[in-house]
């Protein structure tokens, strides 16, 4: 078991591969097996998910009116 066992130190470097689903199935299995008994690593994984979530919330779709008008004017000028 020990040869392929993932330690916590290994795991924190593998989190992005895991979340991007870029891990061989065998490694994914060992990753999840570790998470199943290691509460700090489970919290770390959740913190990474939450970090991604918080970053994503920085995205605002609304354009300010001035910018919007300026962009539309490109169209108006082009088609005059």
């Amino acid at each position, binding site marked *: 078991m020990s040869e392929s066992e993932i330690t916590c130190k290994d795991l924190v470097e593998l989190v992005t591969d895991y979340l991007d*689903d870029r891990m061989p*199935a*065998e490694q*994914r*299995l060992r990753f*999840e*097996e570790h998470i199943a*008994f290691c*509460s700090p690593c489970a919290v770390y994984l959740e913190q990474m998910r939450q970090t991604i979530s918080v970053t994503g919330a920085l995205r605002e779709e609304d354009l300010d009116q001035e910018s919007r008008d300026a962009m539309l004017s490109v169209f108006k000028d082009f088609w005059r």
Partner: protein
Amino acid sequence: MTVAYKFLRPGRVAAFTGAQWPEAGRWLDSDGQPQLCRSGIHALKPSALPMWMTEELWRVELEDAQELERGIVLARRGRLIDRVTAWNDDLAREYGEACIAHVPEGGPPIAQQRRADALAELAGVRAGGQAAAVGYIAAKAADALTAGGYDSERQWQAAWLSDRLGLSC
């Protein structure tokens, strides 16, 4: 049809995907070709129970199941049969105590340290990941006593659970 077991979070929620299982008797289908750890319904043979503990243990029926390594069973669809109610906080505590008691005291410092750590982890243990942690730490303590101790300890732990939970397969 294959019968296997599944640990779920409270409310029949899958631990890693967060998928909501329907109530017992209703089929849950997966998309596409089942792939280990990626897609499909995953369930456990009794040999794998020590590794995946959560709050709820269920018996599950699977269609077109394949048994993979490490006690994992993979299928395209499955349905919960019933809850294994014998798996509860009290049994989790007994399990933890049994795991520790089964590892001999003494031996090299690392073995002793690990055994003590298992005892510390036992405090406040309930049905869930913490019980899995006790089992893991105890198996690692055994591993420090004899070569191959980890695997044989896990086998013993799985057998203990099978017996106490009254599992058939």
